[in-house]
């Protein structure tokens, strides 16, 4: 599915300084019954965000009007658990375009990149600095620069480089997806399949 191109993002950020945020927290399984990709943002972090009677839990960061922006900053091992792309959809649909952490689970990272959300891995020390900058000023701005592969805390000017392979970088910059690539080598795939027994 085509998605918005990702180049440079300047935004405030929402802090979630919890480790091992799993996909069941990002979107609980009972909200996976849709047959279309619609409305998942409403249930992002559902059980951390709402009480059983659907009233908002005031202490949860998404319910705190002080925080906002297109960047979500999470603790180590973000996105562990299931392969549900619904987790990435919920994050995108809510309005985030970049998730920052010091470590990502594998499938979640791939799912994000396939739908145009940038999973941006920083060092553990730099992650602490990002949390500190938001704590000092919830309106602190950050710059995600994909062409330059840098993440900058604008209030202090501190900057760190991040890694991404050239292929995925080009995809995100241009809004390309893997299926278009694969459809262009379909002849080669069909030849390969002929030699590969069922």
């Amino acid at each position, binding site marked *: 599915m085509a998605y918005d191109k990702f180049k440079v993002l300047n935004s405030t950020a929402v802090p979630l300084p*919890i*480790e091992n945020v799993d996909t069941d927290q990002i979107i609980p399984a009972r909200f996976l019954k849709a047959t*279309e990709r619609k409305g998942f943002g409403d249930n992002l972090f559902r059980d951390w965000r709402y009480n059983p009677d659907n009233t908002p839990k005031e202490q949860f960061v998404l319910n705190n009007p002080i925080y906002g922006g297109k960047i979500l900053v999470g603790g180590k091992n973000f996105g562990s658990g299931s392969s549900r*792309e619904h987790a990435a959809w919920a994050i995108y649909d809510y309005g985030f375009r970049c998730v920052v952490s010091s470590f990502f689970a594998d*499938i979640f990272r791939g799912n994000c990149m396939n739908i145009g959300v940038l999973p941006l891995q920083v060092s553990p020390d730099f992650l602490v600095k990002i949390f500190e900058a938001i704590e000092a000023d919830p309106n602190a701005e950050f710059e995600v620069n994909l062409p330059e592969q840098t993440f900058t805390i604008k209030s202090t000017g501190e900057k760190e480089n991040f890694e991404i392979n050239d292929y995925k970088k080009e995809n995100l910059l241009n809004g390309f997806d893997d299926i278009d690539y694969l459809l262009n080598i379909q002849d080669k795939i069909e030849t390969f399949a002929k030699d590969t027994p069922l």
Partner: protein
Amino acid sequence: MKKTLFDKVWDAHVVQKVADGPDVLFIDRHLVHEVTSPVAFLGLKSRNIKVLYPERTFATADHNTPTLNQHLPVKDPLSANQLRALEQNAEEHHIPYWGLGHEKNGIVHVIGPENGITLPGATIVCGDSHTSTHGAFGAIAFGIGTSEVEMVLATQCIMQPKPKSMRITINGKLNSAVTPKDVALYIISQLSTSGATGYFVEYAGDIFKQMSMEGRMTVCNLSIEMGARGGMVAPDEKTFDYIKNREFTPKGEAWDKAMKYWETLYTDDDSVFDHEITFNGEDIEPMITYGTNPGMGIGISGGIPLANAIEGGAATYKKSLQYMDFQEGENMLGKAIDFVFLGSCTNGRIEDFRAFTSLVKGKQKAENVTAWLVPGSHKVEEAIKEEGLLEILNKAGFELREPGCSACLAMNDDKIPAGKYAVSTSNRNFEGRQGPGARTLLASPLVAAAAAITGRVTDPRELMVFETA
């Protein structure tokens, strides 16, 4: 050049390498279920393309199905809609569909091996992280997201960077009442839930050689819980005996030809892994988890670790214990429990039901425990009946439900109520995984059986010793 088992299977499936990017990997067999596929089929529709190889694609309904009264229409309109969507998509694209009530219906990772879809040396994907189960046969099997499901439906390929390699070797002997589930929970407790992220694991050593195929499936199933994309065991005589004559395995000359290939599927001596880990079989006890991720497990006779003994993340650790309403340093033995769940792609096969039944035989379920026994498939259900296990279970106060994922992820009505404790043979103890507010203790079928009898966390060896005395 020396190659690992993983290298041999991966390299044989690379259609093309992308410079500073992923490999284009050919997928032999694609398993599809109702929850992660509808948006992928919509994608095909908007591109106006068909499934490229329906004969390499298999669909079942499992995540979202009821486990009682499956002969009746599905009550929940959203679930019914999702099941109908898969049925229609399968029909439109000529994919075999084993829906609710079909004799081959069951949990996707149980029916794959059962019907011979899972083969050594194959690449297998499914929009479900526990696809790693199929690695027990020496296949490269891993879970994918919905964009990738669409990719495989459209082109039978996926674009993946080659993971790093890890070998986990366990030699020695397992203690009494230590099952494959305990071996896996032990490994995860040692490595943490992110200890194998970025790796594909090969399990090697005496313990896995001696393990049954179903035991290997349980171990490979849980590979994802330490962050690994998948895990595999080199195929051997046990593997070939298991798959021979199943519906979708090669027959006659094709079998002989395949066997020649399969017999080359082992890690060459002196192959180099990116990471090697070794454990001793004797060090493993029956395990139980006390927290909200599968890495938070201990030997059943042990105490809950102190927060200051945990490396980093004390705040996250305390939040987890608070959710469970447990204290640091407490013992797990003797804690009261409310529910027992036997089932899931981790422990929903016939050997799991045999183990559970062996322990509850001649005893009575504790009155205050609700037990949900959910077979992984109709074939497992049939075997439970044919082997006489159902009669023993009924006498002990247990009933059998119909197959599906059930309380493992609680998408259907099988939800553990808020605040209640469940000893569960499934794979995840995340907050709310088994229902909003539910508290999960992951364990083996034997530990689950012991808890079902006593209503408390109980060392199964106590009840087993009692039986032989």
